[in-house]
Structure formats: structure tokens, C-alpha cells
């Protein structure tokens, strides 16, 4: 009577996730038997697990999008691109954060395990084919993130940030679920592609009101996870309160996953209502750009400033969504990848400067960095110029593509708003550069560099990549375009 249909090919489709899960469980067991001095083994094994997972994602990437487990999981080109960059940025968190966490006595096995579980959650989220998978992937990611933010439990700031993140995150998840329940009520299915097929989006359609109501809740949930104004209140506190390595994680990898979630929910499921949600996102984008860039000027704490800068960059990503075509989403995805790489450099330099008992998170801590270490001052300057969008760096071309998408969508006013506030944003990025190059350092001696040469190499390469991708951005953009074209065809 009970007919359990099981297709062995499903396991091949989810092979990268299965491998990551198996590796995580193995690391969980191995780490139990390690002494604190041997913890580097966990570090190496975690990096190895991420690398093999990335190879499996890349090599097993199917030419056609395939779904597994009755449509719960979809493996397509968009998922592949996002997963590769999620794995890359998580690896950067490990590399940049190791010494920082060790100095703060946070170099524990749980740090690695929670990050690996969060990565698994993100991979499921960007490959979700059903509302259930979206929600569970998101919860796996956010629950791990709450614990990671609270990891430094003796710090009052960290605990406060974690509680804020938890309460507001739970509220946002609740709103998202409420929206999902309305979609289910209107269509009778949880499958994203089937929702699009079953729903009657036409004006005067049978359940249009219910769908629009559900859409509003979905947009609120997505805006919260991305950190768009007016759902951004948690972001500055969490960025400042979390250990810097964890801030790096929240600012890079989980933002890429949030993009994936937004695309799956808005385009794959609710694409027929794009006339409604492009308007909502346009408003969110405009106020995010305004609030993020203006408030960032007043910040003296670099992590807090980067939080407001995140808000403004999220505004740019949402601009890509306003042009509800594959080209528009491709520009948004390109921007998100670019943003993740730029922020990784900025937080990497903060982590490089930090020592035991010294966070290097105030802008004045960067005074005269050029006299103390010209190379890393240069790397930080590249990150700041790129975040500001100065040509010919990576950030400039990402902004250009998004602006092109907005103008193609016929929203000239949004493009003008974006340009005006990007120019306002120049001020606070260039202020950091000015502090590094023209202010007298508080201490004259050369910067004590951490012993980890691997981290210094990776950070330098990451900085140089911003220049290299600024010159050769074409292939990456083509890749994003192709991925979105291929995946959009499947979703229809």
C-alpha cells in the first residue's frame, strides 16, 4: 500500500551536498579526538571538504537543469554559479579568520562545523525547488549563523548582536512562512515551478488577492534577509557585534545565498506578478541606496560603515531585479558576486591588522597604514576604490551592468537615484583611503604581520583579482548571463 518511489539518480544529482554532509559528519567525529594544538587539522580538512565539494559541483554540473526528490531539489546553472562562489567565500572565511579566532580563544571545532552546516544550508537554499526546501535551507543557514554570532559569549556586544539577529530573524522567517502559506492556499502546491504554472496571475484572476498578499510577505522576508531598508535594523549591530571573521561570512556567502533565494521565490515562483514586485523592489532599492550611503558617512567604526555600505549595495542588487528579465537577474548576480569578493578583501585587511586584544575595527586604526605597510594599504585602497565603483576596478563594471539593466527597464529615475547616491558613497570610501595615505600613524613602527603566509598570499590575490576582473569582467558576466538564460528556460 505504501508506495515509496526512490530514484537512485536523485543521489547523483545531490552528490555535492551529500559529500559535504558526509565530510561534515566525519570532521565532527575527528575533531572530538583532537587536542587544541592539533586543531589545524580540522582547518585543513574543512578546506579540503569545501574544495572537493566545489569540484563535484563544477564537474557534475548537468547541461540541462535536473530536479531530484520529486522536485524538492533543482540542480541548474544558477545554482552552480552561486554554489561555487558560496564555497569560495566560505573558504576565504576559514583562511582569513583562523589567526583572528585563535587569538580570541574561539578557535574551536564548532566554528568549523557550524560554518560547514551553514554552507550546506546555503547550497540547499540556492537549489531549492519547493517552498519547503527554501524554508529549511534558510533555517539551516540562519540557525548556524545565530550561533556563530554568539560564539564569543563573554562579549556583551556579541551577545546583544546575536539576540537581535535571532529575534528579528525569527520574525522574518515567520513572515516568510506566512507568505508561503498564502501561496499554498492560492495554488495548492508547494513546488516553485508548479506554483508559477498553476497560479492565475491575470488581473481579476481567481486568487489574485491572495497571491498578492503572499507576495508582499515574501518580499518582506527577502528584504530582511538581504538587509534592505526599512528591514535593515539588525545589520549594523550584527556586523559590529559579531567576531570579524563571522561578519565576513554574513557579509559575503550568506548574501549570495539570499540572492539565490530571492531569484527562486520572485522569478521562478512568482514571475507572473513581476509588475507588482518590481515596483516594491524599486522602492526598497531607492531608500536602501539613500539610507545606506548617507548614514555610512557618519560612522567611525569601519565594520559599521561596511554594514551601511552593504545596505547600499543591496540597493544596487535590487535594481537588477527591477529589470525582470534574465539579463537583469544576471547583472544582479554579477553584482552580488562582485560585492562578495570586494567585501572579503575589506574584512580580510581588518582581520590582518587585528591582534589579540586589538580589533582594528575603528577607521582611526588605519591611520597612516601606508607608512607602516604600503602593500596592504594598497590592497585595502583597491577594495575601497572598487566598493566605491571607481573605474577600471571590478566594482565599477558591476555598477555599470546594473545601471544598464535599470535603464533598459525604462526606470531612468532609479538610475539617476543610484548614480547620485553612488557619488555620495564615494566620500566615505575615499575617507578611508585618505586616512591610510595622508594621516600620521599613531605608532610609527612597521605593521606586525601575522605568521600565516597562506592568508597573506590569498588576501593579496583576492585584492589583485579585483583589478584583474575589472579588466577581464567579460567571461564572468557571460557565465552569469548563460546561467540565468538556461535556468529561466527550465523554470518555465
Amino acid at each position: 500500500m505504501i508506495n515509496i518511489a526512490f530514484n537512485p539518480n536523485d543521489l547523483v544529482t545531490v552528490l555535492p551536498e551529500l559529500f559535504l554532509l558526509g565530510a561534515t559528519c566525519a570532521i565532527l567525529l575527528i575533531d572530538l579526538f583532537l587536542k587544541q594544538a592539533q586543531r589545524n587539522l580540522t582547518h585543513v580538512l574543512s578546506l579540503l571538504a569545501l574544495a572537493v565539494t566545489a569540484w563535484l559541483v563544477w564537474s557534475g554540473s548537468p547541461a540541462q537543469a535536473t530536479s531530484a526528490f520529486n522536485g524538492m531539489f533543482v540542480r541548474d546553472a544558477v545554482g552552480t554559479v552561486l554554489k561555487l562562489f558560496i564555497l569560495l567565500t566560505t573558504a576565504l572565511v576559514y583562511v582569513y579568520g583562523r589567526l583572528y579566532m585563535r587569538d580570541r580563544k574561539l578557535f574551536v571545532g564548532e566554528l568549523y562545523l557550524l560554518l560547514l552546516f551553514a554552507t550546506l544550508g546555503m547550497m540547499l537554499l540556492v537549489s531549492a525547488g519547493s517552498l519547503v526546501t527554501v524554508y529549511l535551507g534558510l533555517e539551516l543557514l540562519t540557525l548556524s549563523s545565530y550561533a556563530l554570532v554568539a560564539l564569543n559569549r563573554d562579549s556583551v556586544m556579541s551577545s546583544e548582536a546575536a539576540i537581535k539577529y535571532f529575534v528579528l530573524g525569527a520574525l522574518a522567517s515567520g513572515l516568510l512562512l506566512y507568505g508561503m502559506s498564502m501561496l499554498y492556499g492560492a495554488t495548492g502546491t508547494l513546488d516553485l515551478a508548479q506554483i508559477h504554472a498553476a497560479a492565475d496571475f491575470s488581473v481579476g484572476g481567481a486568487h489574485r488577492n491572495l497571491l498578492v498578499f503572499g507576495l508582499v510577505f515574501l518580499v518582506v522576508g527577502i528584504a530582511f534577509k538581504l538587509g534592505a531598508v526599512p528591514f535593515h535594523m539588525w545589520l549594523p549591530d550584527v556586523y559590529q557585534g559579531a567576531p570579524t571573521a563571522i561578519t565576513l561570512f554574513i557579509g559575503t556567502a550568506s548574501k549570495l545565498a539570499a540572492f539565490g533565494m530571492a531569484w527562486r521565490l520572485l522569478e521562478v515562483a512568482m514571475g507572473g506578478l513581476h509588475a507588482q514586485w518590481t515596483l516594491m523592489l524599486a522602492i526598497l532599492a531607492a531608500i536602501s541606496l539613500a539610507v545606506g550611503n548617507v548614514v555610512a558617512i557618519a560612522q567611525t567604526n569601519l565594520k559599521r560603515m561596511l554594514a551601511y555600505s552593504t545596505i547600499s549595495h543591496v540597493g544596487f542588487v535590487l535594481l537588477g531585479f527591477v529589470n525582470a528579465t534574465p539579463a537583469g537577474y544576471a547583472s544582479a548576480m554579477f553584482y552580488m558576486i562582485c560585492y562578495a569578493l570586494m567585501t572579503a578583501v575589506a574584512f580580510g585587511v581588518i582581520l590582518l591588522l587585528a591582534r589579540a586584544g586589538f580589533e582594528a575595527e575603528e577607521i582611526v586604526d588605519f591611520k597612516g597604514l601606508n607608512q607602516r605597510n604600503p602593500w596592504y594599504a594598497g590592497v585595502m585602497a583597491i577594495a575601497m576604490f572598487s566598493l566605491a565603483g571607481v573605474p577600471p576596478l571590478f566594482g565599477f563594471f558591476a555598477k555599470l551592468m546594473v545601471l544598464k539593466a535599470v535603464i533598459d527597464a525604462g526606470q531612468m529615475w532609479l538610475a539617476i537615484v543610484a548614480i547620485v547616491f553612488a557619488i555620495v558613497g564615494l566620500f566615505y570610501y575615499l575617507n578611508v583611503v585618505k586616512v591610510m595615505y595622508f594621516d600620521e600613524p599613531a605608532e610609527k613602527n612597521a605593521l606586525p604581520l601575522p605568521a600565516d603566509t597562506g592568508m597573506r598570499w590569498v588576501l593579496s590575490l583576492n585584492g589583485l583579482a579585483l583589478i584583474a576582473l575589472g579588466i577581464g569582467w567579460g567571461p564572468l558576466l557571460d557565465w552569469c548571463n548563460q546561467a540565468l538564460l538556461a535556468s529561466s528556460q527550465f523554470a518555465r
Partner: protein
Amino acid sequence: MTFPLICFYLFAAATTLAALAVILVRNPVHAALCLVLTFFSAACTWLLADAEFLAIVLVLVYVGAVMVLFLFVVMMLDVDIDPLREGFIRALPVGLLVAAVMLAEMLALIGVRVMDMPVTPDPAAAAGVSNTTWLASALFSQYLLPFEVAALILTVAIIAAIPLTLRHRTGVRMQNPGKQVLVRPQDRLRIVKMVATKPAATSGEAPTP
């Protein structure tokens, strides 16, 4: 009006009144007990909708485990209840306003469009099996992947609890049950052979241990 419908209204009214009592009664223990009643009445309405498995789980998990734990904590904390009530009247207008707005919104959402809600046929009845059977087969076939991911989330909760709560205190005297079990009689007790009949030669000399 059929008998099930009368039952539904009775259970629904009991649920609502008990939920109101949760926030209105003065004593936290009474509030917890009212919450038990709320869960129980809700479980009854689910039974009416043929969702017997969910109803039993609600009673077993929430009433049987969660609420009992909750009652334990409330009773052990010995909460001083008067200060908790102080802000109630002051916050009441705002609370009522928020509740009224939410009620209006929900009515606008549900009441106005109630007619166009699609009624999805009960899949369990269509398959000719009981609700529990259908739920089990759906959970382990169609929803296998989400089911496993939910298990992962629980694993994360356990792992996250370790770094957040485990503290290695120094200078704490603890028992080592392993060593206690392995102890032998000769480690604790030394039997000294003494001649029983020897008369005491001198008084005041300490006996040999």
C-alpha cells in the same frame, strides 16, 4: 447543524477562551494550564478534520513534554507575579489598537475573499488510507529530502548548544565514576594482623594503626 459542526464550534470557542485566559489570568501556573487547554482544544478540532496523527502529536509533544517542562520551570522560578502586571493597563490601548488593525486586515483577507479559496481534496481520503498512513508515506517518499534536512537542523541545534554553554571550570572537585568503579578493596582498606591476647604492657601508649 450537524453534530460535528456543533462540536467544532464548541472546541473552537474553548480554544479561543483558553487562549484569552492565558494572557489574562494573574497566576503564571494558571496561565500555563490554560495553554494546555488551548493545545488540547486545538487538537480536538484537528481530530474533527480527520488529522488524527497531528492531533495526537500535538497532545503528546506540546502538552506531554513542552508544557510540563514549562510548568516545572515556572514553579521552580517562583516568579513574583505582581511586577509583571504593572505595565498591563498602560500598554492596553496600544495592544488593543494593534489587535484591532490585525483583525481588520485578517477579515479583509479571509472574509472578503473566502469564496474563492480553492478546496484541495483530502489526499488521504482519495487514496483510501488513514491520515496517519498517508502522512507517513508522504513524509518518507515525497518529502524525504526536507525530512532529512530537518534532522540536520536539529543536529545544528545540539552542536550550537555546546560552544554556547559548555564551560571548563578550574578547581571544581568532581567525581570520576570510572575510577570509583575500578577501585579494589586493597586500595581502601588495610587489614592489620594483631595478636588478640597480648596484654597491654604500658598504659598511655598509642595503639599501632
